[in-house]
């Protein structure tokens, strides 16, 4: 009997404990809400950053922002790139996403077209001058609505290894270079350094990478991928077939670019230039970090012109605001975006060398152009902006580009011809686009 009473008492205690914890939590929530209403608006700011300096600089900027805006309190959520976006998806599903977050530019339409983001057009036109910022319309949809505000720009250029050019007694690339010049130089730069007949230094590289490989080459040939509405595949056209043939030839006929297997064995395409396995490579601004870390003697130039002219892939990583946040939080989040885009914060951020500043004045000043670390020809990035193209980014961009890469792989391995590849890619990409169109209905 005594044991039974003790057992019941145990349950009663646990029950009481739960009640007490619950009451304390409710009181605390109540207090914080009152505090919030009376004094500060708290916003959650999410971003991805490399550990070390980028994270420190961001924290400093947030501290400066809070000094200027004592009525806004910023709580940060920071993770490495992959984890950040994985977590973000589940946060959005649970309506618990940050009020404002830094988005990779290529993900913006996926979120905007699914109603996750707040439209920023009215605020931009009310508070800012579009001409003061670079690529401010890169996240504008076909209806003229802007869904994200640029945070930092990534523009594609040609990276070249000066030391290897000097060894081959070749003149450095210029802005007037064509794809023929690129091929001629690549032939001279491809060699067996050990002299055993095995090529261990390639002139150039192409592969399954989108931004740094097949997308710009197709555009250089005047080829098409999607139509203007981004709902129809136009891959199966003569120029795209020519571009595919050109890439295949670089690897399989001219042998001036490593095969896909060689790229893998050399440690993925991102390592090719820093490890000096290739003398030239297309790369975004961010690639300079790895090149500088490995102390390569290099510089950059605009990508060469092709038969179709010059089209330069560019990505504006951007701030976005969660559509489900309260109006007060959204307004506070917009204040952060405005602050971050201002001259002083942009000057601070530019010193990191992670991205091209979006503030026009800062980008064209010595604060960016005069950064002492390579590449010294930073002007090439800014000059390339007039040819900038946002890579047919739409809500299913990751899926259709994967479908294209999957079709391209056998061709680059010499197992399929360019014509069949274009037809297959066209069919597979259109299937993805059609399915996405159905989802949006």
């Amino acid at each position, binding site marked *: 009997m005594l*044991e*039974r009473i003790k*057992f019941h008492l145990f349950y009663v205690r646990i029950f009481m404990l739960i009640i007490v914890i619950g009451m304390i939590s409710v009181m605390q929530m109540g207090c914080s809400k009152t505090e919030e209403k009376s004094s500060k608006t708290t916003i959650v700011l999410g971003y991805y950053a490399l550990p070390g300096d980028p994270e420190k600089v961001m924290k400093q900027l947030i501290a400066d922002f809070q000094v200027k805006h004592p009525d806004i309190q910023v709580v940060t959520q920071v993770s490495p790139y992959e984890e950040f976006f*994985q977590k973000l*998806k*589940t946060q*959005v*599903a649970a309506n618990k996403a940050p009020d404002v977050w830094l988005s990779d530019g290529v993900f913006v339409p*996926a*979120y905007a077209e*699914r*109603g*996750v983001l707040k439209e920023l057009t009215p605020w931009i036109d009310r508070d800012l001058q579009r001409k003061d910022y670079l690529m401010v319309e890169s996240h504008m949809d076909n209806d003229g609505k802007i869904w994200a505000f640029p945070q930092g720009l990534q523009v594609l250029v040609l990276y070249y290894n000066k030391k290897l050019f000097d060894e081959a007694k070749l003149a450095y690339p210029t802005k007037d270079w064509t794809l023929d010049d690129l091929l001629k130089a690549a032939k001279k730069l491809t060699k067996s350094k050990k002299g055993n007949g095995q090529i261990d230094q390639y002139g150039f590289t192409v592969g399954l990478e989108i931004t740094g490989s097949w997308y710009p080459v197709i555009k250089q040939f005047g080829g098409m991928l999607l139509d203007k509405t981004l709902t129809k595949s136009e891959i199966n056209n003569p120029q795209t077939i020519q571009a595919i043939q050109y890439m295949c030839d670089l690897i399989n006929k001219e042998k001036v670019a490593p095969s*896909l*297997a*060689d790229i*893998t*064995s*050399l440690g993925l395409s991102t390592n090719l230039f820093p490890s000096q396995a290739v003398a030239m490579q297309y790369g975004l601004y961010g690639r300079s970090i790895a090149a500088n870390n490995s102390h390569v003697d290099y510089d950059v130039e605009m990508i060469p012109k092709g038969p179709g002219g010059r089209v330069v892939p560019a990505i504006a990583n951007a701030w976005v605001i969660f559509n489900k946040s309260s109006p007060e939080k959204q307004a506070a989040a917009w204040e952060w975006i405005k602050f971050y885009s201002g001259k002083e914060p942009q000057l601070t951020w530019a010193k990191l060398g992670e991205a091209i500043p979006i503030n026009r004045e800062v980008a064209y000043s010595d604060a960016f152009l005069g950064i002492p670390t390579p590449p010294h020809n930073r002007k090439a990035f800014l000059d390339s902006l007039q040819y900038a193209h946002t890579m047919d980014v739409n809500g*299913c961009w*990751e*899926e259709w580009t*994967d479908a294209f890469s*999957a079709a391209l*792989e*056998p061709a680059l*391995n010499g*197992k399929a011809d360019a014509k069949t590849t274009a037809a297959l890619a066209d069919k597979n990409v259109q299937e993805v686009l059609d399915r996405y169109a*159905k*989802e949006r209905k």
Partner: protein
Amino acid sequence: MRLSKSNVWSSEARWGYLMVSPYILGMIVFVIGPVIAAVFISFTQYSILAPPKWIGLANYKELMSDDTYWQAFRNTLYFTALFVPFQTIVALILASALKRAIRGISWIRTSFFIPVVSSWVAVSLLWYWIYNPKFGLFNYLLRSMGLPALGWLSDEKLVIPCLVLVAVWKGAGYMMVILLAGLKNIPEQLYEAAVIDSANKWQQFRHVTLPLLSPTLFLVIIITMLWSVNAFDQVYVMTQGGPNKASMVLGLYLYNNAFVWYRMGYASVIAWSMFAILLVISGIQFATQKRWVHYN
């Protein structure tokens, strides 16, 4: 024996319920809940970013005509067909060899167990280097013997056997421990009796060890099969399904659909198909176990 009502609610029983309640709650929240959700989601178009939209059997119909799915299905079966027997045989050999009580045996057993506790990322990177066509250990050995180098992970025919080898290297230690426990439960007198009957080592193994170890072997085969159908980590790190989808397995295809392409509904159908595959293979194994598994 049937428990009476008073026994079911006795003080002791209630303590029991209290003790197991965290596990039961976890099971409901993290297993049963998601399983039920997956049933619902499989009938919807769900991008995670927007609310699910009911589309009936459309995802199931799409699965039937999806070439990549069927390629992943074949690759998964191929991986399973190689991995299950290979790992079981290696684990059995290891367990038999390490059964003896010799000096330092626990150290030797531990060394075989180390890959089991290593992370898949670390293991994959190590083997990635071993398989490297230019600088890897395997090709170094081939070249030193005057043989041509191979593109281990970039060859469509070699990639799955290469992945199986890594999986066996990592997993055999775990199965070895289970089999070792099974081997130790076999009474020594049976071997003595077999020796008196002039049975040689092979006959002892065939007629004493194998029958008495069969329940443990059955468990090992079931677990190994579960691992292989759910293979993901190593493929994700080592090949990303390449070259040319030659190592695309169902786990990776599910991941791409759910977390890269925003297709949670379709991914749920793939998950259910994996469940069905496991159910069928396990069903066959349970149905045939009477022929070779001896519980006494």
